[in-house]
């Protein structure tokens, strides 16, 4: 388990998720399928798109949690989803911001 010193949180307001709540987004099957789900995302390239465009249609906060500094593994939480990315560059930038 990573220690507190290896964790980081970044809250970023005013982005939004398609408010597809639990009821609309839940996969078929039992409740266990709804819990603790995390999807993998490919490493993110340097983003040059307009942030306002990216935020369009989102509702609520986006939270990034650096799970492992060594691998750059970051969990990104939004709505009722968790997306895991591995990007040491982004992790490094976030960590520099809190130094």
């Amino acid at each position, binding site marked *: 388990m990573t220690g507190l010193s290896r964790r980081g949180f970044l*809250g970023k307001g005013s982005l939004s998720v398609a408010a597809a709540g639990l*009821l609309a987004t839940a996969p*078929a*099957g*039992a*409740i*266990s399928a*709804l819990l603790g789900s995390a999807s993998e995302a490919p490493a993110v390239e340097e983003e040059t798109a307009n942030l306002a465009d990216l935020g369009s249609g989102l509702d609520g906060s986006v*939270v990034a949690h650096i799970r492992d500094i060594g691998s750059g593994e970051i969990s990104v*939480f939004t709505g009722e989803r968790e997306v895991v990315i591995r990007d040491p560059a982004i992790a490094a930038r976030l960590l520099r911001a809190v130094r």
Partner: protein
Amino acid sequence: MSSHREAPQISKDPVADSTDLYAFVSPDNPETVTIIANYIPLQPPASGPNFYEFGDDVLYAINIDNNGDGIADISYLFRFTTEIGNVNTFLYNTGPIQSITDSHFNRRQTYSVTKYERGLPKVWSGIPCPPCNIGPLSTPNYGNLAGAAITTLSSGELVFAGQRAEGFYVDLGAIFDLGDLRPFEQLHNTFGLNVPELAKPAPGLNATKSVNVHTIALQIPKTALTSDGSNPTVVGARSSSIGVWTTASRQAVRMVAANRGAGEDTGPWVQVSRLANPLVNEVLIPMGLKDYWNSVDPSGDKQFAIHYARPELGDLLPVLYPSAFPNLNALNGRGTARADLEAILLTGIPAGIIPGFQNYLGPTQADTLKLNMAVAPSSSPNNLGLLGGDLAGFPNGRRVFDDVVTIELRAIAGVTYALVDKSYTPDQAAGEVTDGLTSSATDTTAMGTANYLSRFPYLGTPYAGFDIPSDDSPAMASTY
């Protein structure tokens, strides 16, 4: 308590803390099964200005396994929404609440039910909760308010969500004072302390009397619960039994922002509470595993099986009562796995153990409340359930009045081990041990509980804040 504040983390999160789960063939409608999941423990009736309510930020669920793999085949999910009519008053109600739609009902909750079966969701929303029972001026005719909150879903289920009187009873103070059961305290070893008031037997004291809980109740046609849609009529058929449990989940991330007065949640749902058989996480699961146990699905319960098969309480009883349990002490000394407890609490009881009965769901060790739906309701119920020869009671499901503390104490003390090992003779004390809150096996009112109802939702009218009962009197008479 059954599962009230049973684990360190969830004890600090009462809105998500499951307290009791009941599942039984409805005595007044035996073609249906009633499932009741209680949350928010130990509510004092006088709780203004902020009366108790379900968590808008909690996902509550009632789950049914009908093929024995410990995985839900049917789930009912409940999400609540709080609405405030007038934010410029401190009042929960601005006048008497005469009906469930009364504009004086200033802070009200509605909820959605989502039923998942075979991958298909069905959603019902906007279902009203009744107010809490405040008192004769604020909530006159409380039974009418509660009754108006009973809703029939289009698929045939009855549903109710709201405050009820606590139906569970336990002498918590005695049990957690080093197992000092009052009816047997003269036999306690007292750790060498000289405590004159423990020199003679005394009746139990109900630690959960005169408090309320929040109830989610469903009444479901039996044919909607079996794996093949059949009506369960054959006790010996595997398909007649189901396993039931309840869970509560919170989103993975909570942010508490300065100067906003409220938090914000995001991320996937994470299970923080679960409950099936009473008292399991309370007294069988060790401290270091309790919150982890809460987070696990029943299908993963094999990892905890040792705590069911060798319960710490079973080892403690002969120590606390040195003269009372010699046979249990010898059984413990042999290191024997308690196959009886594993069957009762994890797999269901196979055929051939109790004549004419089984509620076996299969070999998967999963802590679910097993109910054989083909067993008809008893016309003369015995609060000791199977131990009292009443096949319609715990651990064949659980009824609201079942004396589960006594049943489990006696089972752990060795009474049920004789069912799986005919050569074992239970200690006499094992058949008598109790925390002393029922007057007899036919006592289905139980000391300190409000009268149960004979129909849905079966738990009694919640105690009213104005009354603040100081004795064992039931709440004001009501049909709901």
